[in-house]
């Protein structure tokens, strides 16, 4: 099967899945009855509607090629950083550092992927940006909460730009026999992470009893995690034909993606709570903000990228 056929099968499968989800949402809504409302079911239907839009945008960028995919992820980073900085207390003295983060770091990080310069891509933010940005803030001569301010801005940049950019960076890896198909690897990552989130949500709603971390994330339960993680791992294994992996390797990779995604959701919930918010924003109907959808990707992408690069690039 050529890559285009694989892509068509994937999109076809996802559209069928969403159609089934919409049908279930519609039936559940009808069972509640006219005029009455159920917050959980209304939110479920809002989420499904938003999924249609997200799948449409993602597929369109994919079909338009590698550069369009990079632009899409650059915009995702931009919007995610905007949400992060909105919730983070900043001062006038941070203005220059923040301008650099939004208008220079975001485009440069994705441009480095576009021109295939892996060595600089990997260190541009941790070395250059993390040293120069605090210096810019220091030059504004505002020492109040300096360490807290710079630490929060660095964390925001690390998660929203550096970590998220590792998803499209999968296109940089040269795997023998897999040339020209790296976009499918990106699709695989996003599919496994998001399915894992959805399945954990579904299992949690159906069977969830034992809370894992009630203070940080009240909706995460042991039953939801185990059910969602195992089923997403199985789906990941079944998707081996779009990856360079064997079915067993694919199961292992999917499991690591699922685990990192879970830890990302948990850690960023803690960040969100320490900033005093329930949702990162309101950009995506039913889901919250961009970061509410990207939190799992931000942890899963760098690890998946490096494991693939280490084991599958000669």
């Amino acid at each position: 099967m050529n890559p285009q056929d694989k892509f068509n099968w994937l999109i076809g499968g996802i559209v069928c899945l969403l159609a089934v989800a919409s049908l279930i949402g519609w039936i559940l809504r009808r069972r509640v009855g006219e005029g009455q409302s159920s917050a959980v079911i209304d939110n479920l239907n809002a989420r499904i509607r938003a999924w249609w839009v997200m799948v449409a945008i993602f597929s369109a960028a994919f079909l338009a090629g590698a550069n369009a995919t990079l632009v899409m992820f650059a915009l995702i980073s931009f919007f995610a950083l905007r949400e992060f900085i909105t919730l983070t207390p900043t001062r006038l003295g941070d203005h220059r550092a923040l301008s650099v983060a939004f208008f220079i770091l975001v485009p440069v990080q994705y441009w480095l992927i576009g021109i295939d310069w892996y060595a600089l891509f990997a260190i541009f933010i941790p070395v250059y940006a993390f040293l120069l940005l605090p210096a810019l803030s220091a030059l504004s001569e505002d020492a109040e909460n300096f360490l807290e301010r710079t630490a929060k801005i660095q964390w925001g940049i690390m998660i929203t730009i550096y970590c998220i950019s590792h998803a499209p960076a999968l296109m940089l890896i040269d795997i023998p026999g897999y040339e020209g198909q790296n976009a499918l690897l990106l699709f695989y990552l996003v599919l496994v992470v998001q399915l894992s989130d959805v399945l954990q949500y579904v299992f949690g709603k159906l069977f969830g009893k034992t809370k894992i971390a009630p203070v940080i994330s009240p909706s995460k339960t042991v039953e939801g995690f185990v059910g969602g993680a195992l089923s997403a791992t199985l789906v990941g294994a079944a998707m081996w034909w779009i990856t360079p992996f064997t079915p067993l390797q694919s199961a292992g990779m999917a499991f690591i993606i699922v685990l990192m995604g879970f830890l990302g959701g948990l850690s960023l919930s803690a960040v969100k709570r320490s900033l005093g918010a329930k949702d990162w924003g309101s950009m995506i109907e039913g889901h919250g903000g961009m970061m509410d959808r990207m939190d799992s990707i931000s942890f899963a992408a760098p690890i998946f990228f490096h494991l693939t690069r280490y084991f599958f690039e000669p």
Partner: protein
Amino acid sequence: MWLSNLLIATVRLLVGATPRWIGCEPADTQRIYFANHSSHIDTIALWSALPPELRSHTRPVAAADYWGTGKLKRYVVLQGLNAVLIDRNRAAPGANPLDPLFEALERGDSLIIFPEGTRQCQPLPGPFKAGLFHLAERYPAVELIPVYLENLHRSMPKGTALPVPILCSVRFGAPLPRIAGEDKQTFLNRARDAVIGAAQ
């Protein structure tokens, strides 16, 4: 107008400018929106938060001594925003600086004004200037809508040239009631409190 659309798209990309109708609904009645002022993008943020059909006859009021100078700035505010220019420095001694505003209200347009007269560095508004009082007295039928612009002082504080993308919301409060016989200062304080009230 392509320039209006470009300005609105840019402001939405940078700061979102999500409308929150807390005390009133968007309606086609003649209104004066008065808001706190902390950045150069306040006007476009408030303007883009209005539904398009209201936007076409809601005109921001801008200072002639800043926005009226220079061809580009003048073109942007007059063509892009359909603004009414006001002479803050009373350059022509005999003329009432509010005349252009009276004219716009006579024509049935709504207005956007920033009664502090200048940008503040803090989140809450400073004391209001008298213009709003005179407009309210002369046009008792026009609704007065307090608006709080949240977070814009963080996005583009006074003294900076580039806005930082930070999500801002535009919070519309309940119409300010008229109280017969109220003196100027009491009215202005009450109007300022209404803007602060829309912040919560």
